[in-house]
Structure formats: C-alpha cells, structure tokens
C-alpha cells in the first residue's frame, strides 16, 4: 500500500505554481479586513499594501479551499425557509460567500447533535443525507454533489462547490457493516471513529478494526478527531488508506481535548494522514494569527503534506475575528503568505492535501476489493 500512496506524491499533483496567471482579477481595494487587523489591539501592523490579499485571492483561484467540516445540514434543519442562492444571513454558508471565499469543496457533516443510537441514529443520518442532497439539487448553479477526488475536481472546473458527504458519527452505523455499505452507496465518504462501544477510550475493538477494514474496502475515510489516542494509533496501524482528523488543531498551543499532541501529530504525518485545523476560537484562538500559529505548528510537526483547513462553520461556537464565515479564507491565506508560506505549501493546505487523501482512499478501495469480500462480521461475533 505504501507504494500506491507514493504514486500520489502531492508535489506531483499540485505542480509548479510559478506560472500563476497575471494580472489577477481586480480586487476592490482591499478594504475592511486590513482595517480590522490594524484596529486589533496588540496585533502587529499588517502589510499596509493590499498585495497579500490580492495574492491570496489569486492563489485560491488556482487552488481553492477544500473545507473539511461544515455543520450546515443541521443548521438548515432549524430554518423554516432559506435561500442559499442569493445569500442567507441565518447561516455562515451560502453560495455567494462560498464563491467569495474560494471554497471549492465542502464536507457536510452528518453528525447528530443529540446522542442517538440504534435505529434512531440510522434514521436521523438518512434524514441528514437527504437534506444535503435536497439542498444541493436546489442550488445547481452553486453546488454539486461529489463522491471523491475526481468529482470534486470536476465540480471545481464547472465553477461549482463540490459537496462531499461526511463526516458522520460512528453511531450512524447502528453497529452494522451492512449499513456502512448502504451509507457509502448513498454517498458517505467520512466516518468519525468515536463514541461507540467499538471505538472508545480504550481503542478499537475487533469489530472496530473490521469497520476500518470495511471502510478501506469501500473508500470511506476514517476521521479521528475526538477519538482516543488508542483509537488513533490503532487506526493508523490497521487502515490501508490515509486518515483524517477533520477538526483538530495543535494541543501544544491550545489544550483543547480535540486538539492533537505533538507525538500524535508526528505519527499522523508519518502515516500520510491529514490534520484539518478548525477555524474556531475555542480550538485555535480568537485571531487569524492564532489560527496561523496552529497551521505553522502542524505543518512543522506533521509536514506540509499533512495539514488542511476545516471551517467548522454553522457548527456552533465562535470563530476567530475576521474569519466569521466561509467568505473569509482569502484573509487567512493573506496572513499565511505574509508569514512566508510558499504558494505551493498554501496550495497543499487548501486543496492538494485533501485531494491526495481522497485519491488514496479510492486507490486503497480498489486494491482491497481485489482481495476482500464484503465483510459479514457482526459485533456480536467479534466483540460478544
């Protein structure tokens, strides 16, 4: 499997970035965001010149953001009516702001706010899946459903935001591999391995390992944000496909339980996984600079191929100043460029790394399907 992944070295996919088109689309004299930075107490003086924001937009035009976590499905359930086409102030995500933020792909979380299990969790997950599909179909000019790397790239070439389904919570499986296969067939691509009997504080059970193998066979990515260190380590060993942490920042900088300590970040990086840093005040801190500190740290510890972005919009919780909704990514990227991130590192961060991981999952699935039949294991036989 290592050989398969070597084929997908990100540098080859992302390519050389020196030939970016010039001049870039005119940007109305970089207004508000710069002013806010300057106004922020204690903040260093930002580049007075608008160039970083213009460069940020140009880089993003070529390498849009693949955003690893959106709580939009659940947020929309609360609304009796919404209009994502012309703008919807009740949420942080709509088509105009996705365009402004250069969001090329968006993972729509199917996590359930209450803790449900069994049939109720399965049913609530189907409701969430159905809602996302209904929303996507209702906005064909802005959104397009995508099931993997190829379809995300297609959507992007058609100037649509690719919507990918997941992560869902482990409870969505109702402890059944049949349901995992059905959810995959309905489009699910990421599953969070925590909060069940088979992926708990004590790690993966035998059934939990079988879930990971079946996910590999199907092409569903494991999400380890919120998983116990035991579960993370065991999944890194068992999984033939890269893994994600859809919402984890650096514990060394901020002691949030979902943030990863350096040893796990290093192990994740060594395994070719992807740590997607959430833009939440709680996990990363209240300013753009705090977020960039986390990105710097994860890049340093896990590697530039192993860091990604996760807006975590519409998922409750405050966002850093100037990063209040999905339109704000240029501001973040401007700060990265200001910190001397190379354009190729930015391109990996925003788009390339997630594409690599999605391709890795597809490759692992094709390889596994040659060797493995669909698993008929049950939790009763393996963990009983």
């Amino acid at each position, binding site marked *: 499997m290592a050989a398969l992944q070597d084929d997908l070295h990100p540098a080859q996919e992302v390519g050389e970035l020196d030939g970016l088109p010039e001049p870039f689309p005119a940007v109305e004299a970089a207004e508000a965001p710069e002013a806010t930075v300057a106004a922020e107490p204690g903040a260093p003086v930002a580049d007075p010149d608008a160039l970083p924001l213009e460069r940020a937009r140009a880089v993003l035009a070529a390498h849009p953001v693949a955003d690893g976590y959106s709580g939009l499905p659940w947020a929309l359930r609360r609304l009796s009516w919404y209009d994502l086409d012309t703008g919807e102030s009740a949420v942080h995500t709509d088509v105009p702001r996705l365009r402004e933020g250069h969001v090329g792909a968006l993972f729509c979380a199917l996590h359930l706010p209450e803790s449900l299990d*069994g*049939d109720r969790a*399965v*049913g609530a997950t*189907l*409701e969430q*899946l*159905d*809602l996302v599909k*209904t929303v996507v179909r*209702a906005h064909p000019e802005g959104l397009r459903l995508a099931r993997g790397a190829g379809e995300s790239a297609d959507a992007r070439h058609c100037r649509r935001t690719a919507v990918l389904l997941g992560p869902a919570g482990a409870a969505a499986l*109702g402890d*059944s591999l*049949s*349901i995992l*296969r*059905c959810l995959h*067939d*309905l489009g699910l691509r990421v599953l969070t391995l925590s909060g069940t009997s088979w992926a708990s504080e004590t790690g993966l059970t035998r059934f939990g390992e079988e879930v990971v193998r079946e996910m590999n066979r199907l092409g569903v990515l494991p999400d380890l944000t919120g998983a116990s260190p035991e579960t993370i380590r065991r999944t890194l060993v068992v999984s033939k496909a890269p893994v994600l942490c859809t919402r984890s920042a650096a514990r060394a900088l901020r002691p949030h339980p979902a943030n990863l300590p350096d040893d796990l970040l290093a192990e994740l990086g060594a395994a070719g996984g992807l740590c997607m840093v959430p833009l939440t005040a709680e996990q990363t801190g209240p300013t753009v600079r705090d977020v960039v500190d986390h990105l710097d740290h994860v890049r340093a510890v896990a590697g530039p191929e192993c860091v990604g972005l996760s807006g975590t919009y519409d998922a409750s919780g405050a966002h850093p100043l100037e990063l209040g909704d999905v339109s704000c990514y240029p501001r973040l990227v401007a700060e990265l460029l200001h910190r001397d991130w190379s354009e190729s590192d930015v391109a990996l961060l925003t788009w390339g790394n997630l594409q690599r991981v999605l391709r890795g999952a597809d490759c692992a699935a094709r390889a596994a399907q040659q060797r493995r039949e*669909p698993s*008929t294991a*049950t939790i009763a036989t393996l963990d009983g």
Partner: protein
Amino acid sequence: MTAVTPSLERARELLREFPVVDGHNDLPWALREQVRYDLGARDIAADQSAHLHTDLARLRAGGVGAQFWSVYVRSDLPGALTATLEQIDCVRQLIARHPGDLRAALTAADMEAARGEGRIASLMGAEGGHSIDNSLAALRGLYELGVRYMTLTHNHNVAWADSATDEPRAGGLTAFGREVVREMNRLGMLVDLSHVAASTMRDALDTSAAPVIFSHSSSRAVCDHPRNIPDDVLERLPANGGVAMVTFVPKFVLQAAVEWTAAADENMRAHGFHHLDTTAEAMKVHHEFEERHPRPVATVATVADHLDHMREVAGIDHLGIGGDYDGTAFTPQGLDDVSGYPNLVAELLDRGWSASDLAKLTWQNAVRVLGAAEDVARESQATRGPSNATIEALDG
C-alpha cells in the same frame, strides 16, 4: 416431477420469450434467519432444495426473468429501518456474487435489458411502511438504494395505514399516509397494496397518480381471506392501470386451508400457546392436531381458479404472479418451489389462455407498471419537490 405433457413443453417455450416477473420472494429473510447473511453457507449457485425454495438453477428451470426480492423485516420488533438496510445490502451482495445470472434492475428498461441478456432482473421491494419509520427522507433513501416498491403495511397497522390483519384504526390511510403515497409517486416507487386493509386499498387507489401493484395477493371472492383482494378493488385496476400478482400461499388461496389454519391456531391457543410458537412443546401439540386433521393441499388448479376469476373482474392487462417463495412454510402441489411456474402456465394453456394472454400475465403487465410509475415520477418532479411533511404535522 410429473410427465412432460405437450402443454408443459409449450409453457416452457412461451416462458423462454416472456419469462416470469415474480412480485415477491423472501430469500433475503431466509438468508438472514438461516445463516445471518453468510451467502457462502447458502450458495444459491448450488442446489439449496434442502433449505430454500430458491436457487439459481431452479429459478432458471422456473422460467423466472425478473424477481422482486423482498427486503422484508418484522413489523413487531424495533429496529426496522436498520434491518431493512441490512436486507437491501444482502440483495446487493447476492447480485454482486452472481453477475452471470442476476442483474440489478432499477427501471423497466433494465428489466428488458436483463431479458435480452438472459439474466434475471433483480429488483427490490420493501414489505411494510414500518421500514421507513415515519420518515419521508428514509423513503427517499430506500428508493436511492434501489427499492422499487413498498407494501404500505405488513401484518400490523402502521401509524398511517391500516393492515388487513390488524384492528382498524386509521380507517384506511391518514393524511400522512396519503402524503407517503404521493411521495412514492414522485419518486417512481410502486405502491404495493398486498397486506393492507381494503379501506387502505381504496384510499391508495383514490390518492395514487401511478398504477399500484399487489405484489402477492389473490382473490377474496374465490377464497375469503383478508390477505386477498375484494372484487370492488380488482374492478378499479383497469382505470388505475395496476396489476394484481396472484400468490400461491395455500392458507390464503384454498378455502379449506383457511379454515384448517384457523382451527389449528385455535387448538394452539386452547393449549396455551401462541399460534406462531415453534418451540418443541408447541410443535408437538400442532403435530398431534395435524395427525387428527390432515392439512388440506392446494394445487396448481387452485391458483389457476384465482387467475380465472381475477381475469374476469380486472382484465388480462392487470394480472401478474407473486409466489411468496421462502416466505411461506407450505406451497401448492406442483408449485413446490421456484421451478414450478411452467406448471401454472401449462394449466392456464389447458384452460384456453392464449400465448399473448400469458405473455401479459408473466412479463408484460409488470414491466408496463414499473415504466408507468417512472413516467408519473418524471411528470411529478417537474412540479413537486421532495416532501418535507411529517406525521406530527399532518396527523397531529
């Protein structure tokens, strides 16, 4: 098996061109119950006559060209949605294991393509509204996973529709029940009225814009059992365009078997057992009853009597076949398993049914109905989005 008569020869020949579309087969449930979906342990590519009514060789011998595999789950236990998805997965694995014999079919065109290739079109039907747990999103999920009919109830009422074998409660369909039917029309999922109360049949016929089916039901005028279809409902099929797929289950089609079953159940209750109890003590009581009162045996002619009557009332364009194999303990003589359909066709030939009548019965009517549901869905989707209705909002 009996001697090959000229009629049987002719029946086989006719079935080669227009094979059987069977509306209901419970193989997935049998695989769940017998081997917990270990498809290698009940490999249908091998002879399974010791365990099952169904395997590939007998489907071929029976002239089956399309099968609606039932993704039935019990209506008296929690967890119906989860179990239904497991049943769907089972059918998909079966199809994947036998690509030379089975072909997944989602449309009428797929059914015709399978016939052209000589493979058995494999469709799915859910047996009971309990499978969607009062959720139209779950209904859409089942459709997307390939389910192409849903029986509105099984043996128990659901909150929005009355069953034929439960105490009347809704008096047919509730407001949400009618919305379920409309959403099925919008999707192109056939509304199946087997198992439902006559009041539900009538309400569904009033509501549905698409033809309905009875996936496995026979005639109540011929044999008075609530699982069968009353004549006033059969009479409405020409206007609706639907099909009634005759079932073979002896305790529904043979009057003597209906009465015998009632007496046997009563005997069980008199001895303090539930009538479906299969424990050793209960079976002993049952066997003693059966020794004193031999079980009446249905035959091919019993089923043909139903078809003759249903044809008179509903017309030749509104008949089909739904054997309920692997969903019933007993089968009629001559229709013992899925290899038996040619015997039924031979019996009908002897009764004067023409080749074109039989083509409609076995193949054309069922394919037409699925195609018609697709047409209605296309029209409906031009004007209607997915329904967000909830049972709480509509039924209070």
